[in-house]
């Protein structure tokens, strides 16, 4: 299990940020290589993420759903369950968003197995940290 904390700034009011992070069509493409394959309900989607590792790449496909939401506290959990299409591995994560006026925080708890995990937990943590940092920069303009 890799756990990471990040924050993001949008400069937008709380309600705007809350609506934005619950809109999977807007949030998922903010992950580099991420795309919505199909909306399965207002709060779930089938999605893919293509992670390029130089010449190699890994393609994860699975579901993203709003697993928990507290509209008063502006706290939501997006649950990601995905499988590596080219191997036996998986990448699952609970991503907890707490939004406020101007931005918010993200707590990520991820479990990754297979080829990606074979790089070692330290490397997975570094790459995931870089991926989420990039994600927060894209959220800034959502």
């Amino acid at each position: 299990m890799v756990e990471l904390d990040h924050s993001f700034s949008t400069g937008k009011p709380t309600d705007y940020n809350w609506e934005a992070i619950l809109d999977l069509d807007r949030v998922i493409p903010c992950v580099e290589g991420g795309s919505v394959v199909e909306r399965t309900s207002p709060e779930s989607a089938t999605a893919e993420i293509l992670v390029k590792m130089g010449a190699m790449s890994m393609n994860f496909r699975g579901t993203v759903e709003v697993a928990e939401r507290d509209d008063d506290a502006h706290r939501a959990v997006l649950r990601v369950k995905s499988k590596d299409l080219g191997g036996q591995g998986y990448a699952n994560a609970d991503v907890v968003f707490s939004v406020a006026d101007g931005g918010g925080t993200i707590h990520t708890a991820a479990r990754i197995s297979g080829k990606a995990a074979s790089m070692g937990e330290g490397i997975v943590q570094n790459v995931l940290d870089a991926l989420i940092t990039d994600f927060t920069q894209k959220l800034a303009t959502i």
Partner: protein
Amino acid sequence: MLGPACGTLTVRTGKAGAASKAGHNLRMEVTDWHATLDLGDQPTLAVSVDPHSLRVIEGTGGVMPLGDEEKDAIVKTIDDDVLKGRAIEFNSSRVDVDASGHLVNVEGELQLFDRRRPVAFALTLDDDGHVEGTAKLKHSDFGVKPFSALFGTLKVADDVEVAVDATTRSQDDG
């Protein structure tokens, strides 16, 4: 004259960054190059490389083995994102041959990434016309950031090694 028909021009790159374990040290060959080494009264060396002609021969040190598909993808990345077809040429400004005639010190300018920078290296030359030598280059000397992936956690190392191992032929040999 030197070229692929009488030897190899090899490029070696390493890896860097927090996720370097996922990357590979690459050994590549230039498949279209030619060089003229003139050891007359005023010795000179000129080298010209087709920037589209690199081929990945071997990748070592990665978590996963490097297959043909990945090797081809690296060549495409080099073509599209790194060299971008820009000319690669070296012209000597000074070539010193030692008394034995076997050690040749070369200085000159290398054109790479649309920039010209001074480069110096040594060649050894035996009586049969066999030439060997290695030049050590740095991306940073050319003001270029090495290619990176995975949000900058996996990078090509700054240092690049270019080695020649060939047997000279006179121009008459074709």
